[in-house]
């Protein structure tokens, strides 16, 4: 069903972003012994510092926390997090739309400011996914999590649990979309496998250039050599990348991580007065669809198309192929570099597979995607996931990405978030 899209009552921009490194609070020294509270506060305090604001300056907060019950043993965590960032008794609430929670948080914050109700809003998102708090003990006492139990038994991602059947959840229909994509454009299964391997190699290279990535330690060239392969493409086709689907292997998909992201928004005219010497990043359009992925056969998926259409309508984007300089996708599966980018019109129908093989999605390419390393290799913190891509986009637009920096500093960016196969949240960011 089509949605009527209006315009914001006033323009809103991002004035601060903050993220933690992505790793494991039980392993990585940078995060060791931290609970959700410290991670959330870390990201929010970084965003405040980036914006040049103190907690008292901010009017409201939105807390994205997906696995608060299962991993943290606590509901309504916004109540405690408000005090952890110095915003005790300010308005706010906890929300979740799984892996696109941070885009939903951006939406909440933007709407609060665009409506005129508040001037400055913060959205912070956090999850610890690799371990569970132990009920009855202080929460730095944790036991390793079995993520598959949470995903499959409890949630049947992308499916209505009422009509759930074993094995039909999110990985099946996301890979199914790629199979349908290949069939539509006449690609062989080998071509499809090569393309997702190429995406993984590009993503790992980007993550190795990102100091936030604690869970990877070497490029695929070096990893492949350790296992006796001169070519990482052959390594990714070998038994060392076991299949989890019909064609996709473990290394074509994401691993979860612990981490938090945050952003602060305010009216654009206020942002222009506060920010000097770097572009102000306006939220030019927002899109959001709610649906069940298991009822969306083929590619492109209609909930992607509709979400992007909403964002483009609001932002006045007529030709995304020409107008978008950079795209950030939710790359929990490598095939999204083909199926999702084409759903957005960032690539022409059937073009993305060749673009990937030709290296065009790399930071130095003409159509860069996920220069951060994304979910495939930077890591997947669930609630905060898209916050890392929003932060990366802002840094790219401000020329702060170092050896990941896109050649032409992007001015118009599309953000994509996919939440559990149930939500597609999108946003157009524009330098003003």
């Amino acid at each position, binding site marked *: 069903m089509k949605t009527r899209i209006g315009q914001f009552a006033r323009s809103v921009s991002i004035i601060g972003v903050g993220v933690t490194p992505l790793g494991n609070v039980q392993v990585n020294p940078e995060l060791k012994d931290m609970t959700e509270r410290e991670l959330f506060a870390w990201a929010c305090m970084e965003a405040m510092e980036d914006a040049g604001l103190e907690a008292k300056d901010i009017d409201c907060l939105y807390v994205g926390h997906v696995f608060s019950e299962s991993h943290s043993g606590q509901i309504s965590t916004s109540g405690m997090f408000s005090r952890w960032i110095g915003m005790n008794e300010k308005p706010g609430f906890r929300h979740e739309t799984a892996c696109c929670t941070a885009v939903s948080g951006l939406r909440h914050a933007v709407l609060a400011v665009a409506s005129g109700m508040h001037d400055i809003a913060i959205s912070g998102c956090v999850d610890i996914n690799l371990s569970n708090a132990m009920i009855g003990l202080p929460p730095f006492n944790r036991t390793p999590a079995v993520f598959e139990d949470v995903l499959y038994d409890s949630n049947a991602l992308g499916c*209505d649990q009422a*009509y759930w*059947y074993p094995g039909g959840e999110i990985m099946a229909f996301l890979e199914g979309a790629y*199979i349908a994509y290949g069939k539509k454009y006449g690609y062989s299964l080998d071509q499809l496998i090569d393309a997702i391997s190429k995406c993984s190699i590009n993503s790992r290279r980007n993550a190795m250039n990102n100091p936030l990535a604690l869970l990877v330690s070497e490029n695929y060239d070096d990893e492949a050599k350790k296992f006796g392969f001169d070519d990482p493409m052959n390594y990714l086709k070998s038994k060392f990348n076991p*299949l989890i689907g019909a064609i996709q292997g473990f290394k074509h998909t994401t691993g979860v991580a612990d981490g938090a992201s945050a952003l602060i928004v305010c009216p654009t005219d206020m942002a222009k007065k506060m920010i000097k010497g770097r572009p102000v990043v306006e939220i030019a359009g927002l899109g959001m669809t709610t649906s069940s992925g298991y009822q969306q056969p083929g590619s492109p998926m209609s909930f992607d198309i509709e979400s992007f259409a909403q964002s483009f309508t609001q932002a006045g984007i007529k030709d995304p192929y020409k107008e978008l300089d950079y795209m950030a996708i939710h790359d929990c599966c490598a095939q999204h570099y083909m199926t999702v980018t084409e759903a957005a019109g960032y690539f022409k129908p059937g073009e993305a597979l060749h673009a990937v093989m030709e290296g065009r999605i790399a930071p130095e390419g003409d159509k860069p995607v996920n220069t951060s390393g994304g979910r495939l290799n930077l890591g997947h913190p669930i609630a905060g996931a898209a916050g890392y891509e929003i932060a990366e986009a802002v840094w790219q637009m401000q020329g702060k990405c170092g050896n990941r920096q896109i050649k032409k500093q992007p001015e118009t960016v599309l953000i994509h978030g996919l939440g559990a196969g149930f939500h597609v949240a999108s946003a157009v960011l524009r330098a003003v």
Partner: protein
Amino acid sequence: MVKMQPYVKMWYDYLEEGKIMGLKCKKCGAYEFPPVPVCNSCSGTDLEWVEMKGTGKLISFSIMQLMDKVQVKYGRRYIGQVQLTEGPAFTATLEDFDLNKREELYDRLPADVNLGIMQFDGFKFVSFKLKD
């Protein structure tokens, strides 16, 4: 006055009787499968139970290799996306096709299928088979 029904229970009860049922909107004729009480095509709320034709097209597939403690009871299997003849799409288990023949299955897409009913651990659910 809304007259709500226990749709989920009724759907599974129908499966026990060997019937694959959906809801048809009396206003626009669109189908809701599996059943929900409001038409997602026209917003109509007057829907009637109808037996589905039991046919469709297999659009794509995956193989579920990563199994948790529930799925391991059912084993590795193809999962396919089926567009039903009546319109709705559904993702379901493909019965009786060799897991080592993914290229053959890919070549056959889009393939005609018949819906079926499988018995699992205490309940029945909808599956499908390729037509010969």
